[in-house]
Each structure stands twice: as structure tokens, then as C-alpha cells.
């Protein structure tokens, strides 16, 4: 077994409905999907977010797109039009979730997602 951050294994997107946020995790392949189904439990996600999520955490599986969907209740300071949070819509909660480290088989230990190359952006900004 090895320990690795979810950022090396999954994509993510987060959204809001009222004071409820959802974060979807998209496994890079079927092997990863089976690992996250086993490892990324409701209990671990609740512990990971700590005080950020005051209510219940629900988990749903979408095997057709190799995804897990986490629904975080009472997580946005009262919801968009009421919240004092700068990220009132929870847009950044996906990035926060993939910081979590999980146990993976040794065969996955060396996984590393590509890192951004924004040379084109540097070119633009240099004018």
C-alpha cells in the first residue's frame, strides 16, 4: 500500500444549491474508480472538511462516468445570497477535496497528474 493525494487520481467540480454544496470526483480510470469507491467514504470526507461542513454528508456513485458525488449540507454560510464567505457558492471545494490523501495499491503509488504549463499565458502577459 502507498499513500497518495486525490489530485493525482481524479478530476473534480463543485456547485451549490442553497446552503448545500456538492463536489463530484471523477476517477481517471476504472482502477482508480474502484479505489475511490472503497477509500473516499462519507466519514473520511466529513473529517477532511472539518468545520467547513456543519451538516450531513451524503455520497452517491455514478459508475457510468466513474464518479462519486458528495453532497455537503450546511456548508456555505447560509447559501449564496446570504453567505459572508468570499467563496459563497463553494466553487473551490473540489480543489479542497482532492487535497485528501488515500491508501492506494503500490501499482498506483507513482501516479502523478500532469502539471500546468502556461507558457502561452506568459507570452500574452509579456505583451
Amino acid at each position, binding site marked *: 500500500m502507498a499513500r497518495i493525494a486525490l489530485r493525482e487520481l481524479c478530476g473534480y467540480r463543485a456547485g451549490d444549491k*442553497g446552503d448545500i454544496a456538492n463536489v463530484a470526483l471523477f476517477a481517471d480510470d476504472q482502477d482508480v474508480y474502484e479505489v475511490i469507491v472503497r477509500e473516499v467514504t462519507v466519514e473520511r470526507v466529513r473529517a477532511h472538511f472539518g468545520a467547513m461542513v456543519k451538516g450531513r454528508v451524503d455520497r*452517491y456513485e*455514478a459508475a457510468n462516468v466513474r464518479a462519486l*458525488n458528495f453532497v455537503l449540507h450546511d456548508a456555505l454560510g447560509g447559501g449564496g*445570497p446570504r453567505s459572508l*464567505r468570499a467563496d459563497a457558492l463553494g466553487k473551490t471545494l473540489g480543489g479542497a477535496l482532492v487535497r485528501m490523501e488515500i491508501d492506494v495499491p503500490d501499482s498506483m503509488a507513482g501516479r502523478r497528474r500532469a502539471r500546468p504549463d502556461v507558457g*502561452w*499565458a506568459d507570452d500574452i502577459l509579456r505583451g
Partner: protein
Amino acid sequence: MTVRIAGGQGFYGDTPRAVAGLLEDGVDYLCLEALAELTLAILQKDRQRDESLGYTRDLPFYMGAALPAVVDGRTKVITNAGGINPPAAARAAVETARALGLSGFKIATVLGDDLMPHLDDLRAAGVSLDNIDTGQPWDQLPDAPRFAAAYLGAAPIVEALAQGADVVITGRVADASLFLAPLIYEHGWAVPSDPASLDADDWDRLAAGIVVGHLLECSGQTAGGNYSGDWWALPRPWDLPYPIAEVDADGTAVITKPASSGGRVSFDTVRHQLLYEVHDPANYLSPDVVADFTSPTFEDLGDDRVRVRGVRGKPATDTYKGLVAYHAGWSGEVRAAFSWPDAREKATAAAAILRKRVEMAGIDVDEWHVEYWGVNALGGDTVPADPACEPPECVVRVAWRCSDAESAGRVGRELVPMSLSAPPPGFTGMGRAGGSGKPTELLGIWPTLVDRHLVDAHVRVVVEEV
């Protein structure tokens, strides 16, 4: 027959410049999704100031871009830009047409999503209006309702199209239903207004239309926008992609985009959108059908084309979602920046000193919120506490809530003298607005359920010749 529909707008604030590229590519329907919970709150504040407002005010720009093609018979427009005042939106659209000298088309307005005139009747009819998220009963609504809207389905839009409408303007129609409506109309699918008469295939087709709508409703988000894959490698990232669906009569659809735009449509970009703002993906509740988002297969055909097929659906529930908003106080915020060394400690001290000074000034604050940008403002408790890692700089953002606007405005002014007289060195105000502390009204959101038949009784479609 294949119907081409486009997602030309994903929110109030999107760019009308997307319309030209979609029309050039050729779309039978241009659907413009303009509303969100936050948007309704913004529109409510507009309408409080001016009775003639309450719709998304970029509508004339969208109309200006689309109406020439509408008049030529090349496309039709469906939008929920009417917000909480669809008649005013329709007037604005008509004025735009007149200003451009365009005529010879029909514009329809869908009314009846506004629940404000009916709240007492609904209660009398046995609708609890309880909060479905918190379970709170209606009599605990913290303040008088400011707006109340039901999420209508596709049926009134289908009716408008059947009456020959070329432009359909609605209020709070559910996002995905805007896209389902033209599919029902063009393909002759069953209209979900009479659920008892539908069979299993009907529900599957409606669910397929809802999946298509869900994939298109957030504009670029299905084509590489807000994308956690290799976002830096997407073509022409400054030329934002707006999606198109080619939908067959059996509900099979290909999601794609104009070749001229940037972005990418792939299995990965499409699945990112599939679960956006979704709770239980096997039971996605829409006003028209309960769609199973775990049922379809997604086939990446290459060349920015992804085929979606096999969507399963179940009968719609007998309720619509309703959204009630209430006044929830006044807020303000300030920011200040501190540099290394000890940036985080300086920021913490500044927030605490502000709080103490507000207390000394006798201002009542109901809620404080402190964020440390550059440290854990976004990551919160998921950021590991590492004392060895000292941030090179830190911005502290302090937000507050008061029961009245005057108090909320006074809080921010307590920050300004701190730039010279508070102990943490290097206090840096954040730009011109950073220290203004201008109060903003907060609105609380109260989601509820309403019997669909009680709502449908008030739904009307008004068609006008321009």
C-alpha cells in the same frame, strides 16, 4: 430528424458575443439560461429600486445579437431572462426589435411562476411551504417574503412554440426545461403536463432531454470551462466555447461546439458538467421528469463530439420546487494585506483589533467571518497546519452581518484609522473599494415544494406579434 439546440448563455453576466458563433454554426434553437438563486436575489434588489426592473438587463444585448436571425427564420430563442418580471423583459425585447427596425415575428411571455400573490391560497389549500433543506416550518420564516417563485417545467414553452412563438421569455422555468421544451415540440414527444397519460418510453425521452439541457445550461462548462483536467492545454482558451446538442427523435444526442471557438468537448469535459449542482444523480428531480443521470453512456467520437444515449426516466413528482427569499440583514466587508515576516499573525491581530474597536464604538454585529487569503481562506480545515510553512504574504478579509444598514456601514470605517495606529506593521489597504465597507443587503433562501396543479392553474402564455 435532428434538432440542433445551443446553450448561448449560462448565467446573468455571460457574454452575448457567443451568439454570433452559434448562429454561424447553425442552430434551430438558441436557449439562454440566465437565472440562479443568487440572480433572483439580485433581480429582487433591482425591482425594489424600480418596479420596471426584475429581469436580467443584458437581455437587449442578446436580443440584438439574435433577432436578425430570428426574423430570417434561421433560429428561435428561448430564455428565462424574465427573472421575476417577465412582462418587463418582453417589453425590453420588443423595444430592442423596434430600435433595430426588426419586425414580423412572434414573442411569447410565460407567466405564473410568481407565487407571491398566491402564498395565502397555497397555505389554505394545505401546502406547508416548509423549508425542504432544514425542515423548518413556514411560520419560522425569519422575515417577510421578498419574492417567491416556482420552478416551472417545459409545458408552457411547448405551448408558446405551438402558437407560433419565435421568441419565448419566461421567469423561473427550470434551467434544463428550457432546452427540453423545443425537443418536445420538434420531436412530438409527450408533454408532461398530464403525467398519467405517459408511458415508460415517454419518460425516457423526456429524461434524455433533461440530460441534454443539464449539459448545455451552464454554457462553456461542458466544453472545457471550469475544467479540472488539462485546462491549460485547451485550444484558444480566451475564445470561450458555447455548446450545441444535436438531438434525435429517440433522445440520442451528440454534444459538440462550433469549430470556430476554443475549448474542447470530450468524455471528460462532458462528465464534469453531468454532476454539476446535482445531489442524487440517479434521481435528478426536474419539473418534467425524474432523470437517472447514472443511466446514459457517453461515447467520445473525437473532433469535439460526444454521444449520449440510453437515458432512463421516471414520472415527475407531483410537486414543483419553490424558492422563497427573505431579508436576512446587512453585510459589509474589508480587506487588508500584510507581508512577510509574520504575515498571518499580523492579519489575525488586525481582524481582532477591528472587532474590538467595533465593540468599543457600540455597533451591534450579529455575525463575523474572517478569512486569511494566501493561507486557508478557500481550503479551510482541509489545509494542513504546518508551522514550518510561513506564507510570504497574507490578505485578511473580514465580513460581518448587522440587522440594519447603518450599523453595517459603520463597521468598515473602524478599519481605516488602523492603517496608522494599529500595531501590526505594514498595513496595506486593498485598493479603493477595500476599506469602504459599503453595506449590502443579504437575502435568505427558503427552498420548498408546491403542488404542481396549484401552480399550473395560474400559468399563462401570452403571444404578441411584433
